[in-house]
């Protein structure tokens, strides 16, 4: 015989699974269906390569990554760049992540949301990353 307590627990588990299924799977379907995952992955890889290239350059430099990433968040932490949905934040089921290498004990911890462009400024071995809004129209 099933006790009343077990029935409540079972109901809670079913509720949690239902919520996960209702929210999680349509979100994944939307991400893949809209091909947003490609945009995120390409952005993460391009940004990582851009940082690696800046560190191979011996002098100070400023570079603008001019790709509209509205709706996305770009987070730099330790030696990784992560691009994910700005609405879903840490709950994005399919974030894009890529590794880059900085020299020395430089640590980068920046989070940028909805950027139209990102500014990378390298001064010696220090890298300053910021959101850039003043994009020129060509």
């Amino acid at each position, binding site marked *: 015989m099933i006790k009343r307590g077990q029935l409540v627990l079972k109901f809670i*588990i079913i509720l949690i*699974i239902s919520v996960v299924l209702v929210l999680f799977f349509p979100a994944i379907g939307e991400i893949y269906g809209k091909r947003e995952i490609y945009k995120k992955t390409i952005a993460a*890889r391009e940004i990582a*390569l851009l940082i690696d290239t800046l560190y191979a350059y011996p002098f100070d430099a400023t570079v603008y990554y001019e790709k509209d990433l509205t709706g996305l968040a770009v987070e730099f932490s330790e030696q990784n760049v992560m691009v994910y949905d700005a609405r879903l934040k840490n709950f994005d089921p399919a974030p894009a992540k890529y590794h880059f290498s900085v020299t020395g004990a430089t640590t980068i911890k920046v989070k940028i949301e909805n950027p139209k462009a990102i500014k990378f400024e390298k001064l010696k071995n220090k890298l300053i990353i910021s959101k850039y809004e003043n994009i020129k129209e060509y």
Partner: protein
Amino acid sequence: MKILRNTKASENWAPGSMPYFIIFVIILGFSTVVFLMIINSFLAGSIDIPKNVEERILMERFYNSPDCFAYEDEKIRTYLNTIDWNKFKSNAVIDKCLPSIGSKYSFKLELDNPEGIGRLSVTTTNWAGGADFRLEQRDVFVYYNNKIQNGRLSIFIQDA
């Protein structure tokens, strides 16, 4: 067979029972993770960066960046494609120049000097050794004893 015979304990594993339910939840979570991993691996393969592009970008820093082996004079002017012999004497510089934590590649660098100074070698901390590597060679300048001379840099690359 005894193994197929229903016992009292096996009723616990009947559909709708709590242990069955817990296992169902675990399998559902596990299959979701596997599903995502499979989709992501297809995606990663379809838009991968060519290996040699990424390697070349990382290699450039060895002989061009003053934080790596590039020679920098007292006026803090960096000489491109010029390696400072003194910086090449220990692994400390390469560890600072290309931290191995999380890196997809490991490197071993050998610097030959044709004018009889000899050969120096440094490796990143994640270098595993062995014969499984790709080799790139490059003519460089070497700053040694207040003079700039010709040298040859061999870069051994492994997937970390």
